[in-house]
């Protein structure tokens, strides 16, 4: 499974609140630790990863170093449009007239999927061996910390939709180029992040179907995040509850019930994915997202070990 990190682009998505940013940062660190030059890309106004590394909200498009080999870029549709037009149009004044035009702003805002297309265009640019941005160094791997499943699918689908809708012209051509990359499993991998809970698991299964339909490929990996260890067996819980003080007994029972519910959802996920080639890897619960760089490094090592195993289906 380590060939996951040899793609050009990893798209990390899943239901809101499952720890997509944590997983994206973990994957990024793991790849950077392996000597790659990595960019973690966030869609603007999120910037969770940069905050984890103690940086403030990002200037859009500034490529900033987070750690050795790891960089952070925040992508937004408006500057992507400006950059795109400046690149496409021969005369600077034309691009300026266009971007400052109210009519154009309305059109861009109203055209379905246009924002998504622009965002993916910039992500594509970052993932190229030869960057279009003058003087910019290429990355070995781009990890896209994508929005939640539905919106991520819209992002992945936009280039193809535009290619089909426009048919001719530069947008059609570029849409096709981006879409080709996204649906090429050697270059692009979708990583589905979940937690062992009902809705996130349902959304992961939905993502599998949507990825099949949109990209013609399944997610390369499902990562189940924040799995709580079941330390005690049922009979042990009963013995402990009888012997311990009320607060201790409550904690033990609650932890046990939670772990059991989680195992049931993990089983549901594995059953749902049965028959497709999506491997499932779990990550241990690490205390709710207050993770610093050191925690992420540790998590990266755990993930690395689990990805290295022949059968990455691990019960933690």
């Amino acid at each position: 499974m380590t060939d996951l990190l040899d793609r050009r682009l990893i798209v990390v998505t899943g239901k809101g609140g499952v720890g997509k940013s944590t997983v994206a940062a973990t994957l990024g660190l793991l790849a950077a630790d392996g000597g790659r030059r990595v960019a973690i890309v966030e869609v603007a106004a999120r910037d969770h990863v940069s905050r984890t590394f103690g940086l403030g909200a990002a200037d859009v498009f500034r490529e900033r170093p987070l750690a050795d080999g790891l960089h952070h870029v925040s992508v937004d549709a408006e500057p992507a449009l400006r950059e795109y037009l400046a690149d496409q149009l021969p005369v600077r004044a034309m691009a300026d007239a266009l971007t400052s035009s109210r009519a154009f702003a309305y059109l861009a805002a109203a055209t379905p999927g246009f924002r998504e297309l622009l965002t993916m265009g910039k992500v594509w640019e970052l993932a190229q061996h030869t960057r279009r941005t003058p003087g910019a160094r290429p990355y070995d791997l781009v990890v896209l910390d994508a929005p939640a499943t539905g919106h991520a699918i819209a992002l992945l689908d936009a280039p193809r939709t535009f290619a089909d809708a426009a048919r001719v012209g530069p947008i059609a051509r570029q849409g096709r180029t981006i879409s080709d990359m996204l649906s090429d499993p050697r270059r692009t991998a979708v990583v589905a992040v979940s937690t062992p809970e009902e809705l996130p698991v349902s959304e992961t299964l939905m993502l599998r179907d949507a990825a099949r339909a949109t990209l013609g490929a399944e997610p390369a990996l499902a990562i189940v995040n924040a799995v709580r260890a079941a330390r005690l067996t049922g009979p042990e819980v009963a013995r402990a509850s009888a012997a311990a003080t009320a607060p201790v007994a409550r904690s033990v029972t609650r932890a046990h019930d939670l772990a059991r519910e989680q195992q049931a959802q993990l089983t549901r996920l594995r059953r749902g994915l049965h028959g497709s080639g999506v491997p499932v890897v779990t990550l241990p619960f690490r205390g709710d997202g207050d993770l610093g760089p050191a925690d992420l490094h540790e998590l990266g090592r755990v993930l690395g070990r689990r990805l290295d195993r022949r059968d990455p289906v691990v019960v933690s």
Partner: protein
Amino acid sequence: MSVADRLEGKRVCIVAGSGGVGKTTTSAAIALGLASEGKKVAVVTIDPAKRLASALGLEQLGNEPHRVDPALFTKAGIEVTGELWAMMLDAKRTFDELIERLAPDEKTRREILDNRIYQELSGAVAGTQEFTAIAKLYELDRDGGYDVVILDTPPSRNALDFLDAPDRLTSFFEGRALKLFLAPSGIAAKVVGRSTGVVFSVLKRVTGVDLLQDLSVFFRALGGILEGFTERASGVKALLGDPATTFLIVTSPQREPVDEAIFFHGKLAEARMPFGGLIVNRVTPCAQDDEVDVSALTASMTDELGASLAGKVARTYAEAQALAHRDLRAIERLRVELGVEDPILVPQLEGDVHDIGGLLGVQRHLFATDEERGRMMDEAAGVA
């Protein structure tokens, strides 16, 4: 103050917060609580968990609320003197119905509904759910005959999308801008200046002709429903700022949802929309203020449980308390940042809520007085 006090005199309650914090469950529990107090309540949910949806008898997407069978309440052992209505929003259908209602004639209606741009726009996830959700809210509030309508907001990537939706649509449908498209070579173009001509020639070049054609048909057809749409969007906007409307922010004590809650609260204030209170779900109950001494605790249980089990039990307890302390810090941060004296804290409940009984459990916390709630939290911690 309980949720009931906070919703006193409110007709519309919008439950906001990031994904995965129990928003839908909270919305349904609030609706249940108000219904049991005798009100006629509708709850609009976006994407409920399957088990919760079937608990409410919501087997499929629908566009009208349906009444939750009172027999379910009797079975769960509660008396509901009011009525609980629930629906799962179908964004695409809500949009279609709105167009159907606003279109002046069959031709305009078909032209819009069949247009490829419209089909994508109305089926797309981003933006449409937000707009249709509040459009539905507006309609239910105006015509539904409910005492209270509760809206469980869509899982936006950004809470801002939700507040902005009516504004974005209003300004998008705002006559002047639209006319630019409808008459690119007309008077509007001359008024706006030469740049419009450049815009259109460049657009053709950048986007390819077909797309532009589709767009222009779309915009022209929309021209026919412009007035109705603008009116609707401003009605929706007015409703969001109405004194009878309130926003409850729901979060869990994790950092991301807390950040989002603080951000959203700021945006509410900026937009001068009414903030009605904060609910913190999934709080780990705290049993002791100081750090757990794992070895002492292990030693105290070793005689009865043996060293190995005693150690595991002690570590489990210590971890739970560490989490509880972090939760307390998160809640303190929310108190300061939001200026909320008394957030409503709901302890981590066992398992997902998937029946009326489970909803009732949540509702008890939400509708309790401060004193009762404190007691329930202590009970959950085992220190009552």
